[in-house]
């Protein structure tokens, strides 16, 4: 034997190594210099939209862009976490939609200033959703579509129980109790009992803010504790549906008759309509106390450009082209597949689909009572608040002392981000 086993293995090892290097170079990261036809390649990320057709639509838009080859990545799973991690490296996207960007992402220089993209169109963007994308007068993402949440109620069930659609939080608590029977619960606020989805909405309904315009804690007020205490009543009286197979974002619990009222998104409207016809109505979160006003949460995914992109100018040009100039695509994206309100006011007013019935009311709620989560409401404050809310609702904890802790933590967080602002 002239070829020893060792030598054979050695050669094999070499081959394996060579193979590994080759794959390393060949792996498609969606970027790199030139694509087909000498055009640069941009990678664009979307979170997975549930509605069929959306993915094909965004790919169609991307293909129509002339100056670059845009590769769309459709990302299922925990999108916020994926983008947060990807932004730390160079292999992330050039353009991405983001439920933010967060203040830390802006302060950390992870996203690019997009202010000049909206030079002309700024006044045509819904101001409620543009505000959280604005920091120190600069705009960090272009709102794509406006989403909102609202209360759905089953007309027939309310009539049978002799209950009027609730206009105050007290009325909501009473209604939920009266509507609860052995097999049907009065109200569904998510399987956790509400803290996740409600967020600051009950505080808004009590006339308060999470963070005031001048950057202070906005709920250091006895009215806040009163509002949260009433939510506990819903839980204590067993009026809340808990542990449903699908969560609040899906209207299934409502359409299957597990609950008489459900808090869900505007996106659920077409499904509710198909299942129940006219047997439903929509309401904002009812007002609480004399100072209060009805409230609905609004928010927008925005298109942002990664600061680690190798083609920042081109990426900005693409965002401007798609989310500022191409209004026909924006309209198609908002209204053809799912059910969203276009971020452009002119488009929202034009849309026939958004004028009649429940949809028309929803749009009115969003314009009159819409509250977006403030940019300064950082994840740390949010976790502290959500924890407290959960303890109040489910554990029956004292809302005043729980809120005191949250106020303290939020104030510390606000100090931290305001100090970071000075340094940068």
């Amino acid at each position, binding site marked *: 034997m002239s070829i020893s086993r*060792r030598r054979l293995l*050695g050669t094999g*090892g070499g081959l394996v190594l060579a193979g590994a290097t080759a794959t390393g170079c060949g792996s498609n990261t969606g970027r790199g210099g030139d694509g087909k036809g000498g055009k640069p390649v941009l990678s664009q990320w979307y979170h997975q939209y549930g509605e069929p057709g959306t993915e094909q639509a965004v790919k169609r838009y991307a293909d129509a862009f002339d100056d670059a080859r845009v590769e769309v990545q459709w990302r299922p799973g925990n999108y*916020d*976490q994926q983008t*947060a*991690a990807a*932004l*730390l490296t160079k292999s992330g996207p050039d353009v991405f939609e983001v439920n*933010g960007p*967060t203040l*830390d*992402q802006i*302060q*950390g220089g*992870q996203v690019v200033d997009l202010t000049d993209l909206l030079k002309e169109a700024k006044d045509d963007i819904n101001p409620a959703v543009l505000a959280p994308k604005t920091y120190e007068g600069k705009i960090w993402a272009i709102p794509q579509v406006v989403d909102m949440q609202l209360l759905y109620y089953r007309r027939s069930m309310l009539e049978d129980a002799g209950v009027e659609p609730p206009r105050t939080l007290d009325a909501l608590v009473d209604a939920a109790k009266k509507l609860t029977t052995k*097999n049907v619960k009065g109200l569904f606020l*998510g*399987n*956790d*009992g509400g*803290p*996740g*989805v409600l*967020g600051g909405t009950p505080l808004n309904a009590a006339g308060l803010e999470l963070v005031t315009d001048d950057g202070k804690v906005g709920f250091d007020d006895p009215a806040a504790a009163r509002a949260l205490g009433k939510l506990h009543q819903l839980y204590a009286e067993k009026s809340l*549906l*808990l*542990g*449903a*197979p699908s*969560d609040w*974002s899906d209207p299934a*619990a409502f359409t299957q008759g*597990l609950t008489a009222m459900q808090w869900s998104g505007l996106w659920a409207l077409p499904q509710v309509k198909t299942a129940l016809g006219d047997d439903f109505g929509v309401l904002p979160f009812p007002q609480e106390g004399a100072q209060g006003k009805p409230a609905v949460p609004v928010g927008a995914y925005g298109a942002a450009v990664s600061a680690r992109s190798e083609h920042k100018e081109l990426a900005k040009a693409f965002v401007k082209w798609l989310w500022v100039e191409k209004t026909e695509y924006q309209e198609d994206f908002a209204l053809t597949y799912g059910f969203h309100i276009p971020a452009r006011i002119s488009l929202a007013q034009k849309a026939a689909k958004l004028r009649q019935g429940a949809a028309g009311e929803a749009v009115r709620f969003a314009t009159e009572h819409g509250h977006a989560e403030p940019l300064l409401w*950082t*994840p*740390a404050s*949010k*976790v*502290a608040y*959500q*924890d*407290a809310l*959960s*303890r109040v609702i*489910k*554990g*029956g904890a004292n809302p005043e002392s729980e809120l005191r802790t949250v106020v303290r933590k939020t104030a510390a967080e606000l100090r931290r981000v305001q100090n*970071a602002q000075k340094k940068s």
Partner: protein
Amino acid sequence: MPGRSRERRNRTLWFWIFVGPFVLGLTLFTYVPLAWSAYLSFFDAHNTVSPTRFVGLDNYTAMLRDDAFTGSLVTFLVFTAFIVPATYVLSLSLALMVNRLPRAQAFFRSVFFLPVACSYVVAALIWKMSIFNGVRFGLANTVLGWFGADQIAWLSTTDPPWYWLVIVTVRLWLQAGFYMVLFLAGLQRISPRLYEAAAVDGARPGWEVFRHITLPQLRATSVAVVLLLVVNAFQAFDEFYNLLADSRGYPPYARPPLVYLYYTALGQGQDLGLGSAGAVILALIIAVVTVVQARWFGLGRKED
């Protein structure tokens, strides 16, 4: 002696060819991240892995003062207190029963071992959505309905804390089979002569023999099982996350340390400095617990 030195060189070469990839992998994927995490824990590292602002021990004091973090350590203790004895007793009983089967032993061994092959994620989702969902058509609630009891929202009820039932049973189902196999191996190593001698000495079969022969003979296996169970409980993440998290976060109860740190460091928060400090604290606790446990049980001491 050129030949010998060449041989030695060859040996070194082959040593590195075989060991190298593993050392490289271990360094790259374990030691570097570990060291980096320790480094990050001394910095203000919001949304960055190359931070510039040194903060000393601030992250550590913040973490130790954070009642959510200390609460998560309590959660871990409670979980361990449930899961370790429960798995121990269940897997030992299964092993004793299977070991005494006159036939079809291999069949039952496989049946009980099968759940080990199931993923935590899949099992957690089945537990959450079909067995323990909160509405009237969930399996557990259907059974309750036969007896006329009210339906229970298993994962959302905090008083009484029904969610522990769900969390503990899913892990119990998943891991009992594995430890049963360990116990079976231990049981089969016990010499039959010991039982014969015990019978001659008048020990009654059943509890007495079990207490004085079987259990002492299983000492080494028991120590290993308990150690593994505690370490596994420390690493609890999958079933907690899949049972209790939703798109808006995680409830403030039944939140073990890893889940809490995951949200701190890798959620939208991306506070990598604070998260790393928590991870280092956790690693130290695990190290201390393991050493103390090993000392206490006399792990690695020669069997007599």
